[in-house]
């Protein structure tokens, strides 16, 4: 992971792809979002979704898992080149989280993140704030999730 100063607005990261199975959809929702249309096929068929659909939170946390794995790959590659690895996180928050289409059983979602803003933190001038728009697109090319999140990133040390 490069320092804050090395990150450029507009750069994109291919975060990864995930297929949502019925067991996984029900397992997640049973723990965190037990609304009938996320946990029970018969109830989902009677609902506006028409069939079992993943919790919106599920589609968001899968992005996080894939993003952590991608950042780890980037960090290992940087270490392999003998480059420093800047610390990232924690995040401050997110906005405009949109669940645009349902994610149904066996749908595959491909996630991408794009840097939309970089600025130095006012409260912590030693840190940068990185704002990213993340999206997920299903196998039919439909946008299913979109959100904007902001996280702290380490700045390049002054004496290096």
């Amino acid at each position, binding site marked *: 992971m490069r320092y804050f100063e090395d990150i450029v607005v507009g750069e994109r990261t291919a975060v990864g792809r995930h297929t949502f199975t019925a067991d996984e959809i029900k397992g997640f929702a049973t723990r965190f979002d*037990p609304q009938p249309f996320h946990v029970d096929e018969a109830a989902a068929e009677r609902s506006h979704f028409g069939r079992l659909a993943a919790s919106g939170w599920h589609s968001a946390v899968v992005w996080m898992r894939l993003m952590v794995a991608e950042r780890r790959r980037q960090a290992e590659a940087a270490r392999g080149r003998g480059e420093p690895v800047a610390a990232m996180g924690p995040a401050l928050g997110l906005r405009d989280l949109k669940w645009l289409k349902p994610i149904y059983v066996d749908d595959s979602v491909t996630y991408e993140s794009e840097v939309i803003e970089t600025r130095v933190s006012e409260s912590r001038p030693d840190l940068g704030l990185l704002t990213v728009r993340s999206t997920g697109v299903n196998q039919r090319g439909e946008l299913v999730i979109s959100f904007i999140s902001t996280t702290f990133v380490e700045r390049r040390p002054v004496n290096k």
Partner: protein
Amino acid sequence: MSKRHWEDFKPGTVAFYGPRLVTREEIVAFAAEFDPQPMHLDEAAGAATLLGGLAASGWHSCCILMRIIADGFINDSNSLGAPGVDEVRWLKPLRPGTRVRVRTTILETRASNSRPEIGFVKCLFELLDEQDTVLITLTSPLMIRRREAGARP
């Protein structure tokens, strides 16, 4: 008891749901599964960050809040889910051993223009600790079925 409809939600109403104890075990288990950054897995790694110690993933705090409100009132309502979340602010770390609850404030209700059978209930959800310190805020419009499609409230 019949489930609540959109007409039953009044702006300005405040309600509390929970409490629920958040354990170290579940913080680490969630992080291992969905957000395996060291600050959510290990005390020393967390202490080296702005979190100042082991703290739950922000996504975990959202999921805990979701579970509390699902049990608290959403599953007792004619809910059609939510189109999204306007904003989440992770204000304070959620630590192991915290007993949390959710303060829900109804900000606004409005009928859907395009779908006469549903209305929106915009809520401010705040995850509180035992001292009522706000750990996270989350603002989201819920979609709730109307008792009478298209009727004026």
